[in-house]
C-alpha cells in the first residue's frame, strides 16, 4: 500500500482527500509553460540533399540516431531518412519482388534528395512541451523537427520529452 502511494504521488500530484482542483492545473500549467525551446536539441546531425548514400550509411554507423533530417542549401528541412529506409536500400537484393518497384527507383538515385521521405512531422518554435508530447503519443512518432519559417532549428526526441515530464512530476 505504501508503494502504491509512492507511485500515486509520483504520477498524480496531490492527495485525493482534498483540494483536487488546485494541484492539478499547476502541473498542467508547468507542462504548458515549458516551450520547446527549453528541450530542443539544436546541436544535431543533419544530412544535405546532395549527400551520397555511402556517406549516409557512414553517418548511420557513426551516430546513434534512428532518423536524420535532410536540409537543402538554404537550411530548410526538406525530408528525413530513417534507419528502416537505409536498411531497405542496403538489403535491396534480398527483399521480395513486390517492394522493388518504388525502391528500385529510389536506389537509382544516389543522393539523399532522391531517397528521403518528404513531409516530416514538424512543430513551430512557439509550441509547448504538452503539444509535442501529445503529438508524439497520438501519431506515434519518435521525434519531431522544430522549424522556423521552414528552416530547421532543432529536434525534440521522445526520450527528452519523457525525461522532462518526469522531472516536472518528480
Amino acid at each position, binding site marked *: 500500500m505504501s508503494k*502504491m502511494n509512492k507511485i500515486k504521488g509520483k504520477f*498524480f500530484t496531490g*492527495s*485525493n*482527500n*482534498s483540494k*483536487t482542483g488546485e*494541484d492539478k492545473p499547476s502541473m498542467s500549467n508547468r507542462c504548458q509553460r515549458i516551450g520547446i525551446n527549453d528541450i530542443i536539441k539544436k546541436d544535431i546531425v543533419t544530412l544535405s540533399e546532395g549527400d551520397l548514400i555511402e556517406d549516409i550509411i557512414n553517418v548511420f554507423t557513426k551516430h546513434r540516431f534512428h532518423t536524420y533530417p535532410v536540409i537543402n542549401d538554404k537550411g530548410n528541412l526538406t525530408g528525413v531518412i530513417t534507419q528502416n529506409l537505409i536498411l531497405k536500400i542496403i538489403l535491396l537484393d534480398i527483399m521480395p519482388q*513486390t517492394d522493388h518497384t518504388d525502391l528500385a527507383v529510389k536506389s537509382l538515385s544516389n543522393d539523399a534528395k532522391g531517397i528521403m521521405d518528404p513531409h516530416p512531422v514538424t512543430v513551430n518554435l512557439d509550441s509547448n512541451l504538452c503539444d509535442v508530447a501529445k503529438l508524439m503519443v497520438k501519431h*506515434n512518432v519518435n521525434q519531431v523537427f522544430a522549424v522556423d519559417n521552414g528552416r530547421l532549428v532543432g529536434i525534440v526526441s521522445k526520450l527528452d520529452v519523457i525525461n522532462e515530464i518526469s522531472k516536472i512530476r518528480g
Partner: protein
Amino acid sequence: MENILIIFVILILAKVLGEFFERIGFSSILGEIFAGIILSLFLLSQDPETFSFLAELGAIFLLFTAGYKEVHLQELRSASKKAIIPTITQILLAFSSGFILGLIFNFQILESLFMAVAFSATSIGVLVKILIDYNYLSSKPGSLMLTSAIFDDIAGIFMLSIVVTVAELQHLPSFSQILTIFAKLAFFMLSMAVLGLKIYPKLFDYIHKMHIKESIFSFVIIIALFSAYFAEAFELHAVIGAFVGGIILSRIPIAKIEDVQSKVSGLSYGMFTPLFFAYIGFTVDLSVLETTSLFTVLVVVMALFGKLVGGFIGSKIVGLDSSDSLIFGIGVMPRAGIELVVITVGRNRGIIGDEIYSAIVLMVIVSIIVSPMLLKFAINAKEKSSFTSSSNP
C-alpha cells in the same frame, strides 16, 4: 453508388459528431449512434443490405479487437480481488432487474434473458477521464471501478456467448440441448486452442517470409474472419469466434507487432466499429422513443438503478463508506459496447422486437450522458462533506 454515399456520409458524420461529444466530455460512441439516427431521418424506412452487412463486420471487429488488444489475463490477475464482490453484486442486480422487468411486461423468457444481459454490461471509458480530472484514479472507489469494469467485460462476453448461442436455437433450450451447446462450445474452444498453440505460430513463421504485401496484417484479418465463420459452423455466433480468435492471436508475438496492431486498430476504429454504432442509431425505431411509454422509461431507470444499487451494496460489503460506495455505483452505470452487440443479435434473429431494442439503445444513450454528470456531482458532494467533517483521508 448509393452504397458509397451511405458509407461516406456515415463515416464523416460519425467522426465529426464523435469528436464533438468527445470534446464536451462524453463518449464518441454517442456521436456515432447519432450519426446513424440522423441518417435514418433522411433515408426513410430503408434497411440497406450493405449497411447491415458492414455493421455485422463492425460487431465482429469490435470483439476481435477487444480480444486482440485489450484483454490481458495477466492484468486481471494483478487486479484486486476486492473488486470481485462489488462486481458480482452490480451485475447480479442489473441482470435481475432486466429479467424481472421483462417478465412483468409479459415478454417471453428468452426476450427477458436478452434484456437481462443487455442490462449487465459496463463500459467505463469516459468516466476514467473524470477520475483523472478529479484525481480519483487511485482512490478506493476509483481503482475498484477500473478493475470491476474489466471483470465486467469478461462476464459480459461470457453472458453474450451464452445468450447468443441460445438465440441461434430461437427458443429456450432443453436440458439435452444445453449439453449439446456446451459440447460444441468445448469442442470449438479446443480446436481454437490447438490452432492457436500449435498451428498459427508455425503458420506465421511462413507468413512473415511471404513476398506479398502486408502478409502478416492480411493473415491477422483472415484469422479474425475465419474464427468468426468457424464459430458459426459450430452454431455459435460469429462475434464469439472473433473474440476468441483475437485472444489467441494476442499471444503470438509476430501477429502483434506494433505495425500490424496499428493497422488492425485503424481498420477497426477508423472504419468498421463506427459503422456498427451508427447502424445501432440507424435501426432505432424513433416512434418508440417519441411515445416514451412506461416500459421505455422503466428500462432506462431500472438499468441504471440496478447498477447503482448493486454497486453500492457490493462496495459497502467490502468496507467502503457511503459516499465512496455511491461513487462506485455511479461508476459502473455507463454502457457502450457488448450490450449493443447483444441486442443487435437479438433483433436480427427476431428474438427481441423494436420496443425492447429501441428502449435499450435509449438506455445506453442516457447512461452515457447521465453517468459523467452524476459522477462529478457525487465526487463534489464528497469533497464538500470531507471538508466540513475534518479532513480524514
